[in-house]
């Protein structure tokens, strides 16, 4: 609680003092390094779709990269979803797996709960590209 008070009363005004520009750019400059990026409508839609994942792992059985790419092989696609939903910082651990995806969309047809896996992976990759460009 005292930490939150410190953030609200001291750290946040202090950060605001030195930032100039439109609100979104200012927010990103101040908070993107901490992994705090604003949630957009598409982000929420993607998160809702991903929440249907039950981590059954079937998508890995048909993913050509699960065998070939060590980053995917070590972690697995469900783990990517879980990491992303935990915090944006942890999603960095899944970076290798996301970058390796070749968008073959084979995983979409095998998901028992109908999660649009390829679309989510594409969204996560694209989202990270934007964040890297904006905030580092």
């Amino acid at each position, binding site marked *: 609680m005292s930490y939150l008070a410190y953030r609200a009363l001291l750290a946040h005004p202090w950060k605001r003092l030195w930032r100039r520009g439109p609100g979104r750019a200012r927010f990103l400059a101040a908070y993107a390094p901490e992994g705090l990026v604003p949630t957009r409508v598409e982000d929420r839609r993607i998160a809702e779709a991903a929440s249907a994942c*039950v*981590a*059954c*792992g*079937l998508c*890995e*059985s048909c993913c050509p990269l*699960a*065998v070939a790419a*060590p980053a995917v*092989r*070590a972690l*697995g696609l469900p783990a990517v979803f879980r990491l992303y939903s935990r915090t944006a910082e942890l999603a960095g651990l899944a970076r290798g797996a996301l970058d390796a995806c070749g968008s073959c969309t084979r995983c979409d*047809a*095998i*998901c*028992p*709960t*109908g999660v649009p896996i390829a679309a989510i992976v594409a969204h996560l990759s694209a989202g990270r590209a934007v964040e890297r460009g904006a905030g580092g």
Partner: protein
Amino acid sequence: MAGPVLETDVLVIGGGMAGAMAALSARASNARVALVRRSPGATAVSSGVLSVGDDPRALPGDFFASRCSPGDAARWVAAADPDHPYARVGEGLGEIEQAIAFAAHELSALIAPPEDRNRWIMTPYGSAIPCALCQRSMAAGDLVEVEGLVAVVGFRGHLGFDARLVAQGIDRLEGLGAPRAEAVELALFMGQGESIAQPFALAQALEAPGAAEAAGELLGKVLPAGAAVALFPPVLGLGPQDGGPWKSVPERIAAAAGIAVAETASDVPSVPGLRLQRAIDARLAASGVELLQGEVAPGPGGPGAPLEVAGRSVVAASWILATGRYLPGGIRRRGVLQETIFDLPVEVGGWPRRTSTPMSTGSLARRPAASLTDRDERALQPLFRAGVRVDAQLRPLDVDGRPVHPRLHACGAVLGGHEPAADGTGMGVAILTGRLAGRAAAGKL
């Protein structure tokens, strides 16, 4: 609507165990059958063994006290629980033995021949579960049959399987007559910068030429004295691939190590579950069932009217609903529980026979799903027993208790009254009701 109209006798919606049994049994009655499914369902993430029922008089885990056959166990279940699909099918339950034999025959490439008792197969958690049918790769691990030491084999770095936990689980059953067990570890797939730890990747790696043989040779060196069977994690290959001669991974390991090889039942991600689904798909294709992949768009008419299936128009005299329950989405929770394709009423049977809040048994629940759980976590949970209510011919009933349509049938986990995840009858219900529904649908042509 693209494509010509597909005319067929029976349309099965859902391609798991229940849908497959319905389609194959309708084919066996010489009907033309089409089967549509969106994706693999709960069968593909199942443990890979097919449980029909357990002896209710035996203590939990006391397998030597369990002497009744799977069919008799199903009859016990039906006598004890009038809401269970085993009881709902009435005289149809008399066919449980034929249904089990039918499933074993249709899937004989994968399933070991049935016995007149339950087999007891170890799980990765160190417990033993009874099953009427198991995969050929598991049969040698039947605890009742093993004579001698069980060597529980783990792969180094495979986090999904703790060989010592499984060995301890077998040792705990020793007083009941189980064999002794010892854990061994194979340092395979973990050298020179490669680390294969995921079940599907392990299964594919073992199918590579020479890999199973290498595992077998390694195993031969570390086997404890007196070992009669090597019990592996459930990663021994994904099964027959298209074309070419094929020898199963357990056979290859056994030949190289000189010992019988078996695998345990599976957790998710489930290699045996996917293997089972693939065997089902292969059998459906081989028996001449028209397979469609996609969604079903419900229309105004009943069976006999055109139905939009996977972007095509399908006209079938009978429809069989085999869409499963929560995981594949046959039943969804949108505030209240709903059947997703035909919006059939969902019942929550058996609620609450053992609790104090009265509600008529078998009432067609239109109440918030959150109110359908019992605080006692050991009790049967009404939420998990929810499903479509059917008559003895497996026709779904409307709110007044009349069949919705004379040629609409339902089978498998979409039926209410049983708890597939907990009561050990999930696959048995799929096999029995699938067979009965398929034959009933084909018989009305």
